[in-house]
């Protein structure tokens, strides 16, 4: 594990967007702000690509560590790391991010707060790039939170809409529930090993003695400490990556402007949870925690695929699709290791960013309509349709597209020793092909059903980035496999590809498309007409439409419990406050008595007469009984001091 100061240039990768963010906030002109941020992202791409190139040649991770603070000789260190995991991520984030920035410059053209928007986007990029480069569990968490805040700000960017404001809050709070798990994992790892760095010349958390300590220490439920920490980290990942049961924020997050959905809620931030598991995989190794990851991922993938099939909002379908695909990535890491999961993460980033940006173009072309029942006839937008279909086939994992290669690998890895997971993933793939096809059938063919005018093509500044992404959505997978993507990530044992895996992969993707076409062909749909699937599935379809009632169930349980707790605390506090009033009342009564009988009769005329003029003045500032109380208090303090003196002198002598 080499440590080297020569890596300090890595700092520029998150720093350049941050500088752009600051300038964009100070900048009065929205155009200038957007240009600054685009330039910042383009500039960050240079060191990012250098990092990517270097990362392929490394035998071991390279790190650059420095001290954040020192307490009692104990230093809390931060660091940046260069290895295939971080190298590939910075390249992808800057590249996809740059394209999305370009797109957003046009998409947000008419928004008065464009400067703010780009500042937030850049802040997000800073957080994301810092997150993937972190060589410290703590630093990773810190950037993780920055990413969360940027996401909050961007989701609720159009905050004059109450729904957007609510969605931002929901996203922040739901992910924060996961973050608590993450935080406790950090605390536990820190107290057991005293280390927070991942790699540090054999003393890091993920290497040597520290890892052995954690694997030897017992946690609870029969797990080792490493296993418990891994599970807690996974709780954080569940929140961020929208896995069951904390996925509820992601569909609502679609309230944000579409470039945000593409950047944050498809390509990068939501993948941070997957990345976290990949980064800390040595803690999961050989522990039942890995089974939890696999099964949560598979269950999420299945659930979200069903839910996607029941949605009518163009972006919500994609949101559930994202949840589903993230589940598959989790499965990939759990069953096949870092390489398999990360490969799917990258190919997903390209095609899902493409689909979201394409959706933005469609929404733009249809006059800000998002309901697919009111679309149809969008095929008139020829360029957008073309690139959108590229993304769609990749998501369906049609053979030889990027999605096919990466998903095939997950299936193959799962087939080997987890048949249950394998068949679940196969069903997910079938459903994926179905919901994508259903969406395309609603949107593209036929007559336009919207109330506005006919769909019109978006300007070239918006479509150009789409073509670049489309090329990657189609060809990235092939080239990546060809160039040895699995060897690049390392730690990968080529899974056999029995014939049945290949057959299933082909069958589910093409079969799903065909099945969906069969269901919808010749039937009326769209507008007010009930979905053809609801005729077949009946009540089950209602459940899918309503996203399996998760929001309603949470509202009736967790949220209610939370509010009841707050209410109970408030009632108890009010009861305590009655004691306060009692004390105040008693004091007033006593002060009244003293004021009239004690002070006047006893003190004024007897002990302190004439010596308390100054105190009287202060009493006159407020002549109510309370004020009287104060002045008498001061007198009693004085009296007390005399008594104290007497005692003290007596005690001494």
């Amino acid at each position, binding site marked *: 594990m080499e440590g080297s100061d020569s890596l300090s240039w890595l700092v520029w990768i998150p720093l350049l967007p941050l500088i752009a963010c600051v300038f964009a906030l100070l900048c009065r002109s929205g155009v200038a702000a957007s240009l600054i941020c685009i330039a910042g992202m383009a500039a960050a791409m240079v060191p990012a690509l250098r990092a990517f190139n270097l990362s392929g040649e490394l035998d071991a991770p390279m790190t650059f560590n420095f001290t954040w603070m020192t*307490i009692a000789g*104990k230093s809390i260190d931060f660091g940046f790391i260069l290895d295939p995991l971080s190298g590939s991520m910075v390249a992808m984030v800057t590249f996809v991010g740059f394209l999305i920035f370009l797109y957003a410059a046009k998409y947000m053209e008419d928004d008065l707060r464009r400067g703010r928007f780009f500042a937030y986007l850049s802040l997000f990029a800073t957080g994301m790039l810092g997150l993937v480069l972190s060589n410290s569990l703590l630093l990773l968490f810190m950037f993780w939170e920055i990413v969360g805040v940027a996401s909050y700000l961007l989701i609720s960017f159009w905050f*004059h809409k109450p729904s957007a404001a*609510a969605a931002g809050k929901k996203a922040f*709070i739901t992910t924060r529930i996961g973050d608590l798990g993450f935080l*406790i994992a950090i605390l536990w790892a820190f107290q057991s090993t005293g280390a927070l760095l991942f790699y540090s010349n054999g003393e890091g958390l993920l290497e040597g003695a520290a890892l052995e300590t954690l694997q030897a220490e017992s946690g609870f439920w029969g797990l080792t400490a490493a296993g418990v920490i891994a599970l807690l980290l996974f709780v954080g990942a569940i929140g961020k990556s929208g896995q069951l049961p904390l996925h509820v924020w992601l569909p609502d997050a679609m309230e944000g402007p579409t470039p945000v959905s593409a950047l944050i809620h498809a390509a990068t931030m939501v993948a941070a949870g997957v990345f976290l598991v990949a980064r800390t995989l040595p803690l999961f190794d050989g522990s039942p925690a890995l089974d939890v990851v696999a099964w949560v991922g598979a269950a999420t993938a299945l659930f979200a695929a069903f839910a996607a099939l029941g949605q009518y909002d163009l972006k919500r379908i994609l949101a559930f699709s994202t949840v589903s695909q993230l589940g598959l990535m989790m499965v990939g890491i759990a069953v096949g290791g870092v390489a398999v999961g990360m490969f799917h993460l990258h190919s997903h980033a390209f095609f899902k960013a493409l689909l979201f940006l394409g959706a933005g173009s469609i929404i733009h072309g249809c006059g800000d309509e998002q309901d697919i029942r009111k679309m149809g006839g969008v095929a008139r937008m020829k360029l957008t349709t073309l690139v959108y279909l590229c993304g769609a086939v990749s998501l369906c994992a049609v053979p030889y597209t990027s999605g096919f290669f990466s998903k095939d690998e997950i299936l193959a890895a799962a087939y080997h020793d987890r048949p249950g997971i394998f068949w679940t993933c196969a069903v997910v793939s079938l459903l994926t092909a179905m919901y994508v096809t259903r969406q395309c059938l609603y949107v593209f063919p036929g007559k336009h059903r919207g109330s506005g005018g006919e769909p019109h093509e978006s300007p070239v500044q918006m479509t150009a980035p789409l073509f670049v992404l489309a090329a990657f959505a189609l060809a990235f997978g092939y080239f990546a496999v060809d160039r040895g993507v699995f060897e690049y990530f390392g730690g990968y044992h080529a899974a056999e590809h029995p014939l049945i895996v290949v057959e299933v992969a082909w069958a589910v993707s093409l079969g799903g498309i065909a099945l969906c076409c069969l269901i919808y062909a010749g039937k009326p749909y769209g507008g007010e007409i009930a979905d053809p699937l609801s005729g077949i599935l009946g009540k089950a379809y209602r459940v899918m439409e309503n996203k399996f009632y998760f929001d309603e169930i949470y509202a009736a349980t967790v949220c209610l419990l939370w509010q009841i707790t*707050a209410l109970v605390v408030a009632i108890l506090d009010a009861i305590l406050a009655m004691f*306060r009033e009692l004390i105040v009342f008693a004091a007033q009564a006593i002060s009244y008595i003293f004021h009239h009988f004690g002070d006047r009769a006893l003190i004024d005329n007897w002990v302190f007469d004439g010596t308390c003029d100054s105190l009287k003045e202060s009493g006159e500032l407020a002549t109510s009984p309370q004020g009287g109380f*104060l002045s008498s208090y001061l007198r009693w303090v004085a009296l007390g001091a005399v008594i104290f003196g007497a005692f003290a002198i007596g005690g*001494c002598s």
Partner: protein
Amino acid sequence: MITLVTFCPLVAALLILFTPASNYRGIRFLALFSSLLSLVGTLLILQRFDASGGLQFVEKAAWIPRLGVHYYVAVDGISMLVLLLTALLAPLAVLASWNRQQGAKAYYALLCIQFTSLFGAFTALNFFHWFIFWEAALVPAFFLIKLFGGDESRHRAALSFFLFTALGSVFMLLGFITIFLHTGFLDFPVLADLAQTGMLPAELGSVYPWVFLAVIIGLWVKVPLFPLHLWQPSAYAQAPTAVSMILTGVMSKMGVYAFLRIMVPLFPQGIQAYNEPLMALALVTVLWGAFLALRQTDLKKVLAYSSLNHVAYCMLGIFAAAAGTLPANFVEAPVLAIQGATLQMFAHGVTAAGLFYVVGLLENRCGTRDINELGGLGRAMPRLTGVFFLLTFCSLGLPFLAGFAAEFLIFSGGFALAPGIVSCAVIGLLATAVFLLTVLQKTFTGPEKAKWAQLPDLTGSETATLVPLLLFVFWIGLAPGDWLAFSDATSQILANLLR
């Protein structure tokens, strides 16, 4: 030097009393000038402060030797930071009430007396005059709330504030009289030495638990911790803006500071013996404050309960430093917890003062602090909204801002020693996020309301008041080491006392 810093505002207060009431410009200038002088003095102390040393800038003179009373002031690592916090917030509090004309004379004089009492309470090392400052800080606060406070309920708020804290002090006074009668000393360092050698518990014998209880009740009220927090929300809510800045920024730290200055050195055995109930009450306070804040609609009350919650984290850190057994790979845990508490005092002081200030601005502009009546302010006041968001996120522990560094230290030190309690306290972080984001949602987002459309954004002087605070919010968050270095040596000593 310390004496100069301490009494400079008092001199100004006297001068103000001799200034005609109509000359409010001269009055506020005097107040600002004196507080700036104190700030300069504090910065000079800071510059020459030796972080590795113990008590410095010692001034000691016999006062009433027979009673063990000395004029004895000095700073060490812990007092350095709170002193700096006070010196920093004092001029900002004057600036925050810059436009006050009515009753300016009494107002500024009281404010200056308040500053002197606070400086004194943070530097005194002899119980006698420490206690005078400690009590004296109450009086101006009482009158400032009562005379210049919000609505009609300010009288009750002022009274219950005064009653609770004064009653607490009576207990503490009794405790110290007993200590004096048994030992003959009132100097804190001397008593600390006695405690360390085991003499103090031995001398006190069977009354030790009672003395411990009496002193702790006095501090308990001041911090405050559950269930003696009842005076706090209404006092904070009713106080005028500058006073709530000082109350929440500095006075709420007096209790925590006194724990570090008095309880830990004098009663480490007591803290160890009663560790579990103490921690439990700190935990209850953390959660109590957070959950109560959820249901408030008055912005100042939300912030008051939020203060209750945040200051309780300090206490959690201090108590945790005495808990459990040291983990083999992390023997520094108690120091981290104490350092976290120290930094939290500083970080929360800056953040909460800023938040109260901005709420004051909002109240001036909109005429209400009720979050149900506000709403949609984001459009009309983008800069004010931005600052409020920033301070709010600092308050809910966003990394790279002040609150996170402090809370992380408390949690990391505390978890190593008392994992169960600290894990529960983490729920407080969630509740904080919920109520603070609800405030943001109801106040600043939503459809713009016509009645707010013409309201001005931050003015130049308002920005000038906020910039120093924001600077510290970032500085503490990005490089907490710069500040922790001052208190590192002292915290190690304190942590060792508790083990």
